[in-house]
């Protein structure tokens, strides 16, 4: 079976400004890179996913890029190179030069493809790279045996003097595809089709909170394309049978990004490669001082991958492709190994199971180094932000028949916004995966309507666990409600889902009912959005089951000091009093 190896790199960021040089301008680094690539047999194709130069670059910077291309072509016997421009290849100075012209509108400068990417086109011509068009599909490469078509797409369409989201010229790509594949898509039907562009269409996890700015104006989330434009572009790609999109831009390899294996909803398989050129040490040195940033420096010491604190790193990908399709993605990273830096095979993703694994073909060692620089999600912070923003913490006297509180958390907002429910489900899922006691529960119970809605969001995450729901505070449960619990059922530990735990009375009532049915004391694990208990626990009396609380956020709510019946404010209705007749 014919196999082909393709190398994918991006974000070279070559610069001739002193202090801004790329690692690709350092001899030792390039030597290490070439030595590591020499070990890969049958490599004959190189893909460069944009940002050849840094900050618009200059002709001089492209000269350094030419040297790198020449060297890699000669020493590695690379026969095919496909390149696309990135946002750093857009030269703003050249655009500013024409902005004074009366015939040019300042907000339409992005349309001047020839001018804004002038040095890039010169670089492509000089290196004899295929140029198909100056917008839409900028280049394509046809490889035979196995049959592959690589399509370079310009995602810098709307980038002019300001940076911004990735954007694709839909008309241009559609026309380009018609010409390349034929009006009835009759050409290249059996080819494996791969699109290459600079911008990652979806947010890169590590950068998901990074807002990019230009002159103080927020212009978007780092690492994304305009979502509306991308949805339309995606449809066009799928119509032409293109299921793979390889990108750069975010400077990090997205671990587990290969769809549909990990993100099965999306019809496109995304792969993003880290930066081959950015020297992260400068960025870190500029940001950190030993006195102030001891914690961060300690964390940096712990990093085994050469990169920045937010998960960006130097990398290249090697793809193996056969007639049957994509076989394997190998992610290589520049690592710190006992003080020395070297290139290392970091992670491997297998695609095609039918292909027999021949390790001699696929080369070197695989280091088992976890990539986990991501901060754990702070659910409490986000949930309390929502409480603050939406005014969900209500002040006043809240009196029920048998209990009374000062103040109250209105959780209905969470239940009535699907995105919030997904967020809470994600938090609950993490608790169930992390906490041993929860991992081993025999049954998950939704308490009341809200507990039931919570259960519906996590029920299918644990398809093998028994699940049910039970009303709150019933004096007596009808048998249909307790159908899961009888003396023969092997249930020793339960998890109860609810929105807020305060006194724990409703949970205790439930525990008693379960005990009546099963004649076993259960370990009761209460998983909730809020823990508003006065002291972080539910008091138990002798002989009762033990309660463990697993809240996503803690927000104390005080009992009314006057109690249900003796509160003067409640009795005389002196202030904000909210009365519930039933408990």
């Amino acid at each position, binding site marked *: 079976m014919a196999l082909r190896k393709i190398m994918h790199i991006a974000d070279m960021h070559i610069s001739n400004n002193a202090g801004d040089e790329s690692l690709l301008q350092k001899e030792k680094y390039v030597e290490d890179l070439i030595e590591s690539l020499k070990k890969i047999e049958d490599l004959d194709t190189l893909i460069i996913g944009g940002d050849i130069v840094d900050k618009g670059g200059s002709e001089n910077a492209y000269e350094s890029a030419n040297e790198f291309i020449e060297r890699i072509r000669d020493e590695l016997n690379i026969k095919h190179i496909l390149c696309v421009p990135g946002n750093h290849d857009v030269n703003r100075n050249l655009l500013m030069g024409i902005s004074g012209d009366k015939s040019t509108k300042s907000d339409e400068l992005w349309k001047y493809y020839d001018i804004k990417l002038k040095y890039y086109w010169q670089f492509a011509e000089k290196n004899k790279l295929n140029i198909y068009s100056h917008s839409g599909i900028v280049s394509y490469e046809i490889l035979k045996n196995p049959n592959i078509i690589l399509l370079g797409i310009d995602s810098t369409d709307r980038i002019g003097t300001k940076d911004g989201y990735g954007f694709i010229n839909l008309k241009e790509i559609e026309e380009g595809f018609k010409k390349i594949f034929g009006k009835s898509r009759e050409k290249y039907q059996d080819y*494996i089709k791969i699109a290459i562009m600079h911008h990652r269409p979806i947010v890169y996890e590590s950068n998901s909170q990074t807002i990019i700015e230009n002159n103080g104006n927020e212009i978007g989330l780092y690492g994304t394309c305009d979502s509306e434009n991308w949805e339309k572009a995606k449809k066009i790609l*799928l119509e032409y*049978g293109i*299921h*793979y999109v390889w990108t750069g831009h975010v400077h990090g390899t997205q671990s587990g990004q290969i769809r*549909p*294996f*990990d*993100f*099965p*909803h*999306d*019809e496109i*398989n995304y792969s993003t490669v880290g930066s081959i050129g950015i020297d992260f040490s400068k960025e870190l040195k500029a940001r950190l001082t030993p006195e102030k940033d001891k914690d961060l420096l300690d964390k940096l010491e712990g990093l085994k991958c050469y990169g920045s604190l937010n998960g960006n790193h130097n990398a290249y990908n090697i793809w193996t492709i056969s007639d*049957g*399709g*994509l076989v394997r993605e190998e992610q290589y990273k520049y690592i710190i190994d006992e003080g020395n830096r070297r290139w290392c095979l970091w992670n491997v993703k297998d*695609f*095609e199971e*039918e292909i027999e694994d021949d390790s001699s073909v696929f080369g070197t060692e695989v280091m088992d180094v976890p990539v986990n620089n991501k901060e754990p999600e702070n659910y409490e912070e986000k949930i309390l932000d929502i409480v603050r923003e939406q005014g969900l913490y209500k002040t006043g006297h809240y009196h029920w028949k048998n209990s009374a509180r000062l103040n109250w958390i*209105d*959780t*209905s*907002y969470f*239940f*009535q*916004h*699907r*995105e919030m*429910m*997904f967020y809470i*489900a*994600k938090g609950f*899922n993490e608790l169930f995966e992390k906490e041993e006691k929860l991992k081993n529960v025999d049954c998950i119970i*939704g308490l*009341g*309507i*809200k507990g*039931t*809605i*919570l*259960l*519906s*969001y996590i*029920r*299918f*995450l644990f*398809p093998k666990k*028994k*699940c*049910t*729901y039970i*009303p709150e505070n019933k004096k007596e449960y009808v048998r*249909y*409600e307790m*159908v*899961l619990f009888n003396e023969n059922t092997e249930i020793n530990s339960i998890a109860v889902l609810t929105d807020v735990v305060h006194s724990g009375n409703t949970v205790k009532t439930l525990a008693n009912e379960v005990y009546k049915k099963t004649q076993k004391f259960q370990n009761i694990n209460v998983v909730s959005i809020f823990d508003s208990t006065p002291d972080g626990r539910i008091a138990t009396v002798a002989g009762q089951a033990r309660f463990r609380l697993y809240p996503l956020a803690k927000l104390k709510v005080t009992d009314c000091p006057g109690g249900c019946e003796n509160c003067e404010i409640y009795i005389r209705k002196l202030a904000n009093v909210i009365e*519930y*007749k*039933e408990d």
Partner: protein
Amino acid sequence: MFEIIDENKKQYIISLHLEEISMALELKTHIVEQLRLFSKETLNKSCVDYLIKLPGNLEKYSDYEFCVDFEHIKYMAPNTKQRFLKWLQNLPNVKISHCENFEHYEEIKKMGIIENDILDYRNAFNDYGKKYIIDNCRDSQGHVTQTGTELGIYIDLKRIINDSIEMLRWCYIIAYDLNNYFSLVDDEPEKNNLLFCHTMNGSYIAGILSQLLGYDLVYVDHLGPYNKLNKVDFYKGKSRSEEFIIIADMVCQGNEFLRAKNIVEYLGGTVRGSAGILKLDISNVLDPYQINVFSINFTPEEAVNELGYSIRSKLCSGKCVECS
């Protein structure tokens, strides 16, 4: 996992879309990416891996008619194509339905597989669903309802609800019908309709539909027998001038539906209709509404003859024909 096997008709029917959605739920990506699960159009590797193990024992089903329903599936993970087509070709007496929009339709046609759009999953579910209710959900101990009427048998839908596979299957059918309705009527199935629920079972169904269809939900906790509102958590922003679909487990006489409708209208919303697991067609309460979507409908004759369903009131006093 969700195949429907009809031993009488000797049919084995698979919905690729439902299998794919089930895999996506298990892989948990929908909670991170906040997906509208019903809009999934790609058959992925994990699902194909599962399918090729189906059916476990082909010999047992050698005289069965196999139908693979492609509805809502347009694409597939490219590196699984060969294995999938091979599996399809090797199924005995195989037929396909709703395959025209699938990217490899032409290749499947060339394989000589027969198309039959009537032999599809939704149609097969009608018989399956009725049989399931009759065999599994009838409780002859009876039940007194909130409105004081007495049921001869109680239909215990929690038997479906407690079983995760059945629950997803039944909710998928509701989502399928609602999606069809909105595609035809509004031409916009992804519009954010609001689901309204006021019972435990209804909330559970609404929560699942919310994930499948991408609609937000609004609940009232709980609707008492005399339109008494207890703990109304109607969020301000969602209660006014919105269109609601009332989600119920079962509609029989329609009393609960009417009470829920009153609440929705009192709070400023409009009711478009109702959706749920089971409808016993003995009331015309839902007739004027646009949406009337249930996994299974029993006609009055079926309800009496096949389910053995009867409703008595205290006014009867044993003087009616049936009692005497």
